[in-house]
């Protein structure tokens, strides 16, 4: 198969970028999108040009590294598929394909198709965890988790942190990412003690990183390679309202002595 690629090239964070055209020829329909990019990069290298930088690692749709806006769609046209699992048989022979980085204010471009997604890590650091220091845990079967709660938690926990939700969102909101973690932990009995504290801290940090607000366009759940539902955002909003209404002041002095 043959393709014409129009790819965003940008040397560094502060420099202007532009779309550059490349030919990808003799590509197997069984090749993945990233393997097609590999072939193009091999040819660029042999011509003495700099290959196109893009993030990738596991190439089986679980690490969340790969991140390409393909023909204006985060991770391309297929549902529930990360870029690395998109195969060239999904495109028409001879097609022109546009390839761009995520375009979100909170994800500055590092180079070409690589962006800085560390804002997502900082949202987790703000509260996306259960405080459970190593060593003090009770027997695992002492905590009963109804199967339906475990399944809902797992659906939300499947998030790979790729940032496609924010890239697809007209507001540049990472609400689906934030809500997925909040839902995962709030569905479980272990997550209850910090439930309200967590939602307040994470939502505040999401906004502080410069992500936009959610206005329920629903683009995020279509782009999500793990098909996480926008219902998680409703869950987050509900918890956020309860948390702000029920908020109790934390006092540092309790328990010392």
């Amino acid at each position, binding site marked *: 198969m043959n393709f014409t690629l129009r790819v965003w090239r940008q040397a560094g964070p502060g420099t202007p970028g532009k779309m550059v055209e490349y030919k990808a020829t003799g590509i*197997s329909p069984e*090749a*993945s999108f*990233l*393997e*097609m990019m*590999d072939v193009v990069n*091999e040819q*660029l*290298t*042999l011509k*003495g*040009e*700099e*290959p196109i*930088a893009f993030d990738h*690692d*596991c*190439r*089986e*749709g*679980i*690490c*969340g*590294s790969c991140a390409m806006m393909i023909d204006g769609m985060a991770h391309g046209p297929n549902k*529930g*598929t990360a870029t690395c*699992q998109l*195969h060239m048989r999904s495109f028409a022979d001879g097609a022109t394909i546009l390839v761009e980085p995520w375009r979100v204010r909170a994800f500055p471009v*590092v*180079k070409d198709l*690589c962006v*800085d*997604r*560390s804002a997502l*890590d900082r949202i*987790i*650091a703000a509260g*996306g*965890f*259960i*405080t*459970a220091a*190593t060593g003090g*845990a009770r027997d*695992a*079967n002492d*905590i009963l*988790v*109804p*199967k339906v709660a*475990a399944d809902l*938690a*797992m659906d939300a*926990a*499947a998030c*790979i*942190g790729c940032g496609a939700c924010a890239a697809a969102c007209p507001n540049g909101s990472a609400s689906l990412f934030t809500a997925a973690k909040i839902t*995962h932990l709030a569905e479980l009995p*272990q997550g209850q003690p910090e439930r309200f504290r967590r939602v307040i801290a994470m939502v505040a940090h999401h906004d502080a990183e410069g992500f936009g607000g959610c206005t329920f366009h629903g683009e995020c759940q279509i782009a999500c390679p793990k098909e996480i539902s926008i219902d998680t955002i409703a869950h987050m909003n509900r918890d956020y309202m309860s948390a702000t209404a029920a908020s109790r002041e934390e006092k540092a002095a309790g328990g010392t002595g």
Partner: protein
Amino acid sequence: MELRARVPDGPIEKKWDKHRFEMKLVNPANKRKFTIIVVGSGLAGGSGAATLAELGYNVKCFCFQDSPRRAHSIAAQGGINAAKNYQNDGDSVYRLFYDTVKGGDFRSREANVYRLAQLSVNIIDQCVAQGVPFAREYGGLLANRSFGGAQVSRTFYARGQTGQQLLLGAYQALERQIGKGTVRMYPRTEMLDLVVIDGVARGIVTRNLITGAIESHTADAVVLGTGGYGNVFYLSTNAKGSNATAIWRAYKRGAAFANPCYTQIHPTCIPKSGEYQSKLTLMSESLRNDGRVWVPLAKGDKRPPNQIPGAERDYYLERMYPSFGNLAPRDIASRAAKRVCDEGRGVGPTGLGVYLDFASAIQRLGVEAIRERYGNLFEMYQRITDENPYVVPMRIYPAVHYTMGGLWVDYNLMSTIPGLHVVGEANFSDHGANRLGASALMQGLADGYYIISNTIADYLASGKLPPVDATHPAFREAEAQIASRTTRFLSIRGTRTVDSFHRELGNIMWEYCGMSRNEEGLETALQLIPKLREEFWRDVNVPGSADTLNQALEKAGRVADFLELGELICLDALERRESCGGHFREEYQTPDGEALRDDEHFAYVAAWEYAGQGRRPILNKEPLDFEYVHLAQRSYK
């Protein structure tokens, strides 16, 4: 070189308790005065960094990915073993210990394996407390599944994404510490050298992958949790970035490299489809719980699978290993697949494939039950191959998956360089010559959560280290070496890409040091690899510059190290004149084609010591004693 395993004496079930009491402690108020570097943020490194910070140490954690959550542990699918005996099916700590020693074909250290089996129980408790969403039964209790090499059901799982969920648990614990300022995280930063001063590990030198800056970091102890070296084969189930650079640099600074030839070929991966192929995808071993493996009885039978009647199929694992059947251990299942394909009975366009068929399970349990257990794996398979495994049997073939070898460590997980500790797949410690399924996650978390956090205190409290700073000549020398190597890469501007060399190395390794090995082939590989390495340094093309994100330069450094490590793997395979676990030497097999160990001559750990550029490395041996598990030929028949 002296290999002191430092295994505590006393009965095996008391060793770890006794050792924990005998080890020195660091006063809580003093912990923050110690800086510990952790390289790698996977199950072992990430859980270790989080736990050390919780204890009060000052931790710096490094990963080459853009986030610690992307470490390759994330890709583990099937599950994690623990001797909980929740199923009341006869499991115990002792049985997990026994299965692991036997599964490793009697080439691991008993005391380490026993401790691993003991800690397995705590790991599940810890992970549940963190909110890992393990699979549950309707009553709310934890569910289990079976895995290869065991006759009990002791594997805990989170759909087909167990590694992801366990890693996210560790990652969240790590992010909590980062948020509190007790861990300083350095993503997109690659360790390029280890700095040893007065015989003791005192820091690392790194490259910032965005700016290209070469930086020195000093520490009181260094922990490597940088994973395995399976990518020396180019095509493997490892992530593209997984590399051996950190452990290889440490080896060249004096850490012994143990059992490099013990590589695991996983039996159930999606077969290769073309030359452009960049990696292979694993299909979880858990699928063998319900899938039956078969090939046509007749050679060259090209009929579609549904047109081959039952009587003309060979369910070869069930035939050859009736008591374990489709759940035979990985090394055995892989070799059996190779054998039937070598006989000309393989399936698919290349003839390198066997069927993994769910038809009878679907008939017995219904499609919904199978979807519930394996839905996401079936989807993944269909996405890659465009075939529906609910209707057409999966096609699978073995692929490089895990490396049991790694840096030699003592009972405290310290390498032969004092102060350098090695955790997870990067060390050699627990799996012998073959790892059982669902044991890698267990080992990574045991090392990180429970072992290193205890043993490092003993090291730190045992001697007083003089202060060092990054202006020390040893740091300056390492920085200068890295700078000159980088300049050299960028100035060759040859005619071949880094990937083309990597692919060629992979072909050599797979051909001569893959699923089966022989003396002549290994000798050939030992001729070919140095030639390829010479050509690499003469003719590689690394475009771009050093002061920016340059992925070709990153790859060049990793492949240059693989070109050296590949040679050591072949040398180790040549010197080990026996078959054991994943290391199958054609000259040493039983009449029915099983691995034939030679316990009299080879019941040892081969710990290779670097002897300088161009010199043959020195082989040191740590003898292995089996006090509890009797040496016997492994039988799964």
